[in-house]
C-alpha cells in the first residue's frame, strides 16, 4: 500500500509547526529567522509560503516515477515500495544531476560544507514504512497535512471538492503531475497562484531519457558491424596487392 501526504491549503493556518517538527526530526536548527525563509534549502526541508491570505507548502513531491532517482549515476536516490523517495548519502558523489532533473526543484545542496550532501524530505521513511504518520502531519494542529494511503487520500480530496465546491479549485495537484506524485495538494485557487509551476509535464520524465538510452545496445552492435565492414571493404585493395606481391 503506497503511502502519501495530502496538504490542504484551505485548512492551513500558516503556523509553521510542520517546519519546526521537520527540523527537529533532522536535528536542524530552527528559529525565527529560519522560519521567515519561505524557500526550502539544505537546512529547511519543508517550507510554508505565504500568498496574501493563503498558504502553500513546499516539500518533496515523492514522484511515483521520480526523475531524481532515474538520473542519479550511482543510485543514491530510490523510490521505496511504500512510496517515499529516499537518499543514501554514502553513495552520492555530488554531481547534482538530481537537482537539475527534478521538475519541482526539490533536492538542495549543502553549498557551504567542505564535504556536502544532498538534502531533501524523505517523507519520514522510517515512520511511513511501518504504516506510521510523518512528523509534519503529526505536528499539524489544523489537520492540513494528512498522511495515509494514496488511494484513500485521493478519495478524501475528491470528497472535499465535491462537498464544498465553492471553497476548492476543482483539481488535485499531484495526480497527473510527472505521472503522479505521492504528495497531493488542494487549494482554493489555481496552483500557479500558490507558487507551483504551471508547466510541469504531465508524463513521467524518466521515459524521455530512456527513449535515448534504450538505443545503446543497438548502437554498440550496429557500430561494430558497420565499422568492421567498412574496414574490411576499405582495406581490401591492400590485401589484394599484398597477395599479388605488389607493394
Amino acid at each position, binding site marked *: 500500500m503506497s503511502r502519501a501526504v495530502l496538504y490542504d491549503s484551505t485548512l492551513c493556518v500558516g503556523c509553521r509547526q510542520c517546519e519546526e517538527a521537520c527540523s527537529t526530526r533532522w536535528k536542524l536548527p530552527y528559529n525565527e529567522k529560519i522560519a521567515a525563509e519561505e*524557500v*526550502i*534549502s*539544505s537546512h529547511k526541508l519543508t517550507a510554508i509560503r505565504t500568498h496574501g491570505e493563503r498558504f502553500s507548502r513546499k516539500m518533496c513531491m515523492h514522484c511515483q516515477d521520480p*526523475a531524481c532517482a*532515474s*538520473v*542519479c*549515476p*550511482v*543510485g*543514491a536516490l530510490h523510490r521505496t515500495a511504500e512510496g517515499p523517495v529516499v537518499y543514501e548519502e554514502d*553513495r*552520492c*558523489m*555530488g*554531481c*547534482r*544531476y538530481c*537537482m*537539475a*532533473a527534478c*521538475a519541482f*526543484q526539490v*533536492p*538542495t*545542496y549543502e*553549498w*557551504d*560544507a*567542505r*564535504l*556536502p*550532501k544532498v538534502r531533501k524530505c524523505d517523507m519520514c521513511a522510517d515512520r511511513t514504512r511501518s504504516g506510521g504518520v510523518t512528523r509534519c502531519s503529526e505536528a499539524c494542529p489544523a489537520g492540513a497535512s494528512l498522511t495515509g494511503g494514496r488511494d484513500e487520500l485521493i478519495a478524501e480530496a475528491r470528497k472535499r471538492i465535491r462537498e464544498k465546491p465553492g471553497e476548492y479549485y476543482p483539481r488535485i495537484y499531484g495526480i497527473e503531475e510527472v505521472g503522479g506524485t505521492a504528495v497531493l495538494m488542494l487549494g482554493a485557487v489555481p496552483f500557479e497562484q500558490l507558487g507551483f*509551476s504551471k*508547466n*510541469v*509535464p504531465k508524463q513521467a*520524465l*524518466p521515459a*524521455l*531519457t*530512456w*527513449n*535515448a*538510452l534504450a538505443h*545503446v545496445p543497438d*548502437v*554498440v552492435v550496429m*557500430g*561494430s558491424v558497420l*565499422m*568492421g565492414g*567498412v*574496414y574490411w571493404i*576499405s*582495406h581490401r585493395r*591492400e590485401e589484394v596487392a*599484398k597477395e599479388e606481391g605488389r*607493394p
Partner: protein
Amino acid sequence: MIRFRSIFWPAVFALTMAGGAWAAFLRFYYGLGASTHLTDQFPWGLWIGFDVLCGVGLAAGGFTLAAIVHIFNIKTYKPIVRPAILTAFLGYLLVVVALMFDLGRPYRIWHPLIMWNPRSVMFEVGWCVMLYTTVLFLEFLPLVFEKFKLSKAQRILKFFMLPIVILGVILSTLHQSSLGSLFLIMPHKLHPLWYSPLLPVLFYVSAIATGLAMTIFESWHSARAFNRQLEYPLIKRLTRVLAVSIAVYMTMRFLDLYHRGALATLDTPGIERWLFGLETVLMAVPMLMFFRERTRENPTAVYIGVVMFLLGFVTHRLNVSVTGLEASSGVSYVPKWTELAVTLAIVAGGFFIFRLAAKHLPVFGEEEPEEAPTLPVLSGEACQPVLSRGD
C-alpha cells in the same frame, strides 16, 4: 621586442596558473558555495557547461580522425592523426580534472564503477568517458614506445589496434550523443530553442564537426609553434569535409526547430533569441566561408573561420547547459571569478602539456611505414632507424 615576447607568454601562463591554484584552494578548502555562484535553483554552471560539455566536444577529433584513417583507410590524413589523438587524450584528462572540481565529493568519482544505475544517462557517460580515456591512452602509447624504441611492445599493440579503434569510435558515438541526452529530462526547464528530442543526434553531429575544426586549429598552431610546414593541401581537403558536416548539422538543427514550431518563440523578447542568433551566425558564416574556393586557398581565412565555428559550438553547448535554463530557474547565473580562474588554468595547462608532448614525443613524425611487418625483420634493432624517424 624579442625579449618582451619571450617573457610575455610565460608570464601570462604563470599568472593564470597562480590564479587557478588560489581558486583551487578556495574551492577545496571552503567548498562549492564559497567558490562558485551555483545555487539550489542553478546547480550546474561553467564547470559543467564549458569544461565538461565543451571539453568533451572539442576532443572529438581523436575518434573522428582515427575512424577516417584507420577504418575508412583514407591515408592522406595520416600525418594529422597523432596530433588529434594527443589533443583528445589531453582533453579527456582535463575533463576529468574539471569534474574533480565540480563534484561535491570528488573522491567518490569511482562510485559508478560498482554502484550501478543503468537508467541514468550520467552513469552511461561516466562509463564511456572512463573506457574511452583508456582507449585514448592505448592509442597514444605508440608515441611513447616509439620515443623509447620499444619496438616489441609497439608491435604487440599494433596487433590490437583495430578493435581498439573500433571500440573508441563506438564509445565516442555513445557519450558524445549522451551528453545531449542529459538534458532530455528537462523538457519544462530548457528553452524550446534548445530542448529537442533530437538533442543526442545534434550533439553527436556537432561534435564530429568540432573534432575536425579542432584538428585544423591545432595544425595551424603547431605549424607556427614548431616552425613546421603546415600540411596545407590536407587542411584544404579537411575544410571541405568540415563545411559539409556543418551544413548537415545546421540543416538538422533548423528542420528540428521548424518541425517543433520553436522558431515562433523568436518573436518573444528576451536574451534567448539573441543568443540563438549569435550561435547561428557563428556557425553559418564559417560554413559559407568554407564553401568558397577563395577561403580555402587562404590559410588565415580558414583559421578565422575555424575559430568562429569553435566559438559557435561553445555558444551552443553553453546555451543548452546554462543560458537556456536560466529563465525557468528564476535566478540569473554569472560565474564567479574562481570558476573562471579554474577554467582558464585548465585550458592553459592543456596548451602547455600539448606543447611539451609535441616537443618531446614523435607527434608529428611518421608512423612506421605500412610495409614494415612484411619486411624481413632480423632483430628488434633493425627497425629502430625507421621507428625513430620522427625525432
